[in-house]
Each structure stands twice: as structure tokens, then as C-alpha cells.
């Protein structure tokens, strides 16, 4: 795969581009996600990794530890006890990191929204980049979500200050 926007200069063997372009190209091309299937959406998550959909051709592969992961896919409801677990896992991931809220439960609480123990959306707990609606979303929808995440990464810049969980907590506190 060729990095985008590389200028061909008269000088041989020299390529000119921006740091942002190179970094973003590298980041979006190897989105390793955390194996973190907390509900039934994880079935689609498994499916999308298998040979029929083969997410690996986009550089998206599952990692079993948050230390090696770039993307957290929240594939289900978050309840009281999962709040802390989710945040610890999120903080264990190295920057830069992104979060995909997969399915109605992670987006808003879904059909369990009225439950006594259900957090109404993963964005109350960690900063979410991409929301994928559906119950569950089809594998194509998850792939589309990854494409959208790649677009988002392309538009980022190294100059941007990343939102920390502490910032996020302040934002959440405003809503509660």
C-alpha cells in the first residue's frame, strides 16, 4: 500500500510528505483491537475475523492484551461492575487509542436501557470515536465502522491534544 500524497520530486530517491501523513497512514493501516467481547455482538466480532470477512486484510487483528491494542471495541452492555473494568482496560492501552461502540447496547444501552444496572451508552464511561448501530450490526457494518475510523485517523494531526480519561470524567460529570 502506498502512503497518500507523496510528491514525486525531480531529485531521485527522495520522497516528500508530511509527518502527519506518514504517521496516520501507519496508524490506520494496523488497527489492532482488543479481544473484549462482553456480549452477543462479540459473535459478529468473531465472524468478521474469520475467513469469510477476513478483517485482517485491512491490518485489523485481534490482540489478547490491552498493552498491544490500538482499538477497543465495546461489543455489549456496560453495567456497574464493568465500568471500572472497562476504564482500567482503556487506560492500559497505549496511546494513540480509539474506541468503537458496537451495537445498540454500547451506543445507548439498547433494549436494556431501562434496566436497573445498565449504563446508557459506552460514551459515559470511555471516549467513543465510532458508533455502529444495529442489534447486532452485521459484519459489514463493523467493517464499515473500521473504514470510518480510518477516515477519522487520516484527519487527525500529531499536534492535536488527545483527550485523557481525566478530561472525559469532567465531561461526564457535566451530564450526570
Amino acid at each position: 500500500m502506498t502512503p497518500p500524497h507523496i510528491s514525486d520530486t525531480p531529485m531521485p530517491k527522495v520522497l516528500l510528505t508530511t509527518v502527519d501523513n506518514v504517521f496516520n497512514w501507519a496508524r490506520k493501516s494496523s488497527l489492532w483491537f482488543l479481544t473484549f467481547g462482553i456480549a452477543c455482538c462479540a459473535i459478529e466480532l468473531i465472524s468478521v475475523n474469520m475467513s469469510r470477512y477476513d478483517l485482517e486484510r485491512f491490518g485489523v487483528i485481534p490482540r489478547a492484551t490491552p498493552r498491544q491494542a490500538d482499538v477497543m471495541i465495546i461489543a455489549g452492555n456496560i453495567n456497574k461492575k464493568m465500568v471500572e473494568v472497562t476504564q482500567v482496560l482503556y487506560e492500559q492501552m497505549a496511546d494513540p487509542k480509539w474506541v468503537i461502540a458496537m451495537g445498540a447496547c454500547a451506543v445507548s444501552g439498547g433494549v436494556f436501557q431501562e434496566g436497573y444496572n445498565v449504563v446508557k451508552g459506552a460514551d459515559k464511561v470511555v471516549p467513543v470515536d465510532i458508533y455502529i448501530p444495529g442489534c447486532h450490526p452485521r459484519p459489514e457494518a463493523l467493517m464499515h465502522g473500521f473504514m470510518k475510523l480510518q477516515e477519522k485517523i487520516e484527519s487527525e494531526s500529531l499536534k492535536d491534544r488527545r483527550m485523557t480519561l481525566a478530561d472525559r470524567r469532567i465531561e461526564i460529570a457535566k451530564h450526570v
Partner: protein
Amino acid sequence: MSDMDLNKAAEELATRFQGSVATTADGKFNVTVPSESMTEVAEVVRNEMNFDLLHDVSGLDHPDSIEIVYHLYRTSDHNALVLRASVSRDGGSIATVTPVWVTANWHERETAELYGVEFIGHPDPRKLLLADDFPGFPLRKDWSHDDIDSYLLSDA
């Protein structure tokens, strides 16, 4: 044992413990017993009537009481029996049946956390699924959702 015999056994059980018998639409005998005699009732039902499987312990929220319902099964002839006992909504308690049916352990823990009933003598009276500091008893009809968001995200 035929249905008739089971009916007789249920009637006997009710008479012995000053309870009552009702039959549900699916033909199950429901024996309501006083909550104070739950330990003895459980032993009689397990050892004399041979109901060896406890499917479930559930709760019902009535306006003036919490009803604990024990769903029992006899594997020898595939008959079912339901035991019911009412306790107070206000700090109600009932003896545990865990020594009689080991499976009651988690069922009672769940019933306790959801309905606010104490099972006296339970070997492990912690909450089962809910967080330790969960406010109130969520399956009671008067439990309110209103402040739950701030609780759920209290340390988020």
C-alpha cells in the same frame, strides 16, 4: 406417585404446618407455609416426600409482603411442587434451605439482593451479581430508577 397421591401429600404437608394448598393452571400444587417453619418444611419435603431437585428460588413483591417461592421437582416420578412463604417487606427474613438443597445457595443470594429478604443461616450472605454498594432492591415495585445514573457512574 400419581397426581392424586401428590395432592394428598400436599394437603398433608399444609395441614401439618398450618398452611394451604392451591393448584395453578398448569396443574402444579402450590403449598403456602408459614415462613417460621421453613427449615422443617424443607426437611420434610426433601427427606419424606423425596423432592430432590430445587429448580429455583424466586420472589414476588406484594403490596404488604414479599413472597419467596421455591420450585421443586422430584426426579423419581417427574412431579413438581411449589412452596411459598411470605415475609415482611420491612426487614423480612426466612431460614435458608441451603443445608437441604445445596443449589439454593446462589438462588437465595440473588433473591436476597433483588428483594431485600434476609436468609438466616446462609453460608455466604454476600450479594451475588450486584455491586456491594447497590442502592435498594431493584425488583421491588417501588424501587426507583431516578438516581441510578449517578450511582452507576459514581466512580466513572
